[in-house]
């Protein structure tokens, strides 16, 4: 068995999980929602095994490094962290409908990695040969994942809010009935960002520490650094907006979606459109 096979299995399970969550919204049966969560959990375990196996494979090839070094590995890890944060929030608050808006992010990541990216295990170039790589990547991606979950929740908020405005009867039936109330969605959005913001801060700090250790500058306004700071500014604005009148609810949800868009640009856009130090070994 190879890690690549297991990644394929993971992708299929996330697809199944997404479908189950849709069935949950349609059928409004609690047991179906629970099945969706278990499917996501099963996919998460398979993916964990796959990442572990890939780590072992890198040792078999004589390189021996954590699978966090190129674009393929980072996309896989990103989808793993998204499911991890989702599962934590799901087990704590048990709002299953969120799964339908979050697991697709993980599914999309896995599909892109498996179908569109080079999955070769490459040895580490000198710049990446450091323990800081692990601390930096893990903290950043856990932060990104929390923002992905917050974005999914904010989309639910915006859908539910506009439907409720459109007419009270939409609330009574349909897919919406399984959504948590907008007050709870607003709170969950905040909670997810409360997980993400400290992790992003740690990710930026570990990145700065690493840069200082490798190059002698903790901050050089490299596009990736700048974009991570932009993301930090957006979520800092979000957190301050929470305690200002008129910025709760709809505006907070929009800010959260914008924050995640900036996160994705920081993660991928910078590499695709701008130049800099973070080239994923290319």
């Amino acid at each position, binding site marked *: 068995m190879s890690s690549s096979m297991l990644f394929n299995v993971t992708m299929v399970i996330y697809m199944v999980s997404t479908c189950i969550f849709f069935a949950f919204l349609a059928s409004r049966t609690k047991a179906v929602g629970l099945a969706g969560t278990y499917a996501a959990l099963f996919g998460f375990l398979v993916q964990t095994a796959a990442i572990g196996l890939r780590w072992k494979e890198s040792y078999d090839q004589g390189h021996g490094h954590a699978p966090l070094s190129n674009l393929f590995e980072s996309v896989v890890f990103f989808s793993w962290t998204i499911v991890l944060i989702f599962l934590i929030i799901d087990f704590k608050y048990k709002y299953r409908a969120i799964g339908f808006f979050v697991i697709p992010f993980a599914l999309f990541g896995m599909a892109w990695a498996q179908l569109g990216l080079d999955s070769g295990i490459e040895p580490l*170039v000198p710049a990446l040969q*450091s323990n800081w790589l692990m601390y930096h990547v893990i903290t950043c991606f856990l932060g990104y994942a929390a923002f992905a979950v917050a974005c999914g929740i904010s989309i639910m908020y915006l859908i539910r809010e506009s439907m409720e405005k459109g007419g009270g009867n939409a609330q009574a039936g349909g897919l919406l009935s399984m959504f948590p109330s907008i007050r709870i969605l607003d709170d969950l959005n905040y909670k997810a960002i409360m997980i993400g913001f400290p992790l992003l801060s740690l990710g930026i700090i570990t990145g700065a520490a690493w840069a200082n250790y490798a*190059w002698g500058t903790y901050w050089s306004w490299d596009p990736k650094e700048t974009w991570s700071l932009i993301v930090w500014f957006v979520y800092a604005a979000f957190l301050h907006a929470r305690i200002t009148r008129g910025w709760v609810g709809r505006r907070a949800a929009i800010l959260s979606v914008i924050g995640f868009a900036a996160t994705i640009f920081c993660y991928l856009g910078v590499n695709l459109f701008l130049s800099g130090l973070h080239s994923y070994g290319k």
Partner: protein
Amino acid sequence: MTTTNKRGFAQEVWDFFCSLKLSIFLLIGLALVSIIGTVIQQGPQREYLATLSETKIRLYSALGFFDMYHSWWFILLLYLLTLNLICCSIKRLPRVWKVVSEPVLVMDDNFEKSLANVKDLKLKGSKEELKERMAAFLRTEFAAPVITESNGEYHLFAQKSPWCRLGVYVVHLSIIVIFIGALIGSFAGYKAYTNIPEGGSVSQVQTQSGKMIPLGFDVRCEKFSVSFYDTGAPKEFRSVLTVLENGQPVPGFQNRPIIVNDPLTYKGITFYQSSYGQSDEGSLYHITVRDRKGGAPVKLNARQGERVALPGGAFLSVMEATMDVRPFMRGFDGPGAQVEFTPAGGNPQPFVILSDKYESFNAQHGGDLLITFDGMDQKFYTGLQVAHDPGVWVVWFGCFLMVVGICMAFFMSHKRVWARVTDSGVTLGGSASKNPAGFEICFDDLVEKLGKA
């Protein structure tokens, strides 16, 4: 009347800098303008400038877009943010400090109504007995209480982690500390660069602005080596450095290997492996030439670009060479050279020659002659980034404060419990600064335990 106007104006300015709206505006504004510098090349190269129109270049330079993060208006925004967070903290901190340092010890009726969690318990015993029981109970189950007697009733107050309310201000302080560290670095530190050929040494380094800075000691590069993976990707860049004081090696800083991610620090100055190249002087190339019709092989030495006469009237010059062709030619290894071969009376022909392992490859060129490349005595120079930043520890201290502050502000909650003890029983009240749902469970648990006790 003028005084009130003045006061009104001062008040307005103060309110402006204290407002959260300004914070949000500045944070979003900084996020937006920061994008500019990621789109427009900073410290632009000539090639990049050539792609821009004259007007654009003039506009961008006038606005400081080519060094945007150091432009006056960007720095001004950062100062405004700092001023804003200082003002906000000054305005709000005393109120929070009062909650922390002077807690409400007595739960009266009005205060009770403001609490989300209140429970009346009928308990047997005199109020003195109950007071002792409650105090012991709170000490073991929650936190040590403060007891106050008022209007013939006993009031107990206990709290957990009150200082976590200060978390926000710790984060604000951390940002100021980081800025101070950055300022110290920019005024008292420098970033520089130096190239040292193998065997050579330097006593001064050049900063980004072109200024030469004396190190106060010498650094010698004993050796530089680069190794590659089978794929051709670089594996390791390694310089061996020696620090010299008055021409004498410093013990412990002799033949110190440095690689990327493992720098050398001496007297607060750190040397980072950054780049490398082939030293202009020094490299000697070894070539063997053999006549295909027979005869003894002739060994030749050549320097870069030098035209060497070959047997039979031809000339050869080595343009460039490497000890390892793997990064450049898939499926080949060993030394290789790009040469220009001029047959007797003919035109120059450029081609590549490899070691004697690839005889048939080498046989494709050279006319009557079979030319092989045996290798070279190669000299590298190592490119070192040199940094001196006395503010860096201030920055790390600021980062540490930020993490601590964020954890205090996000993950900890100031929990308070009041108990009013009368002869007829106990009224328990509680509140938490965060996570009311979580505290409710904690409070109900406390009530249940008290009921059983």
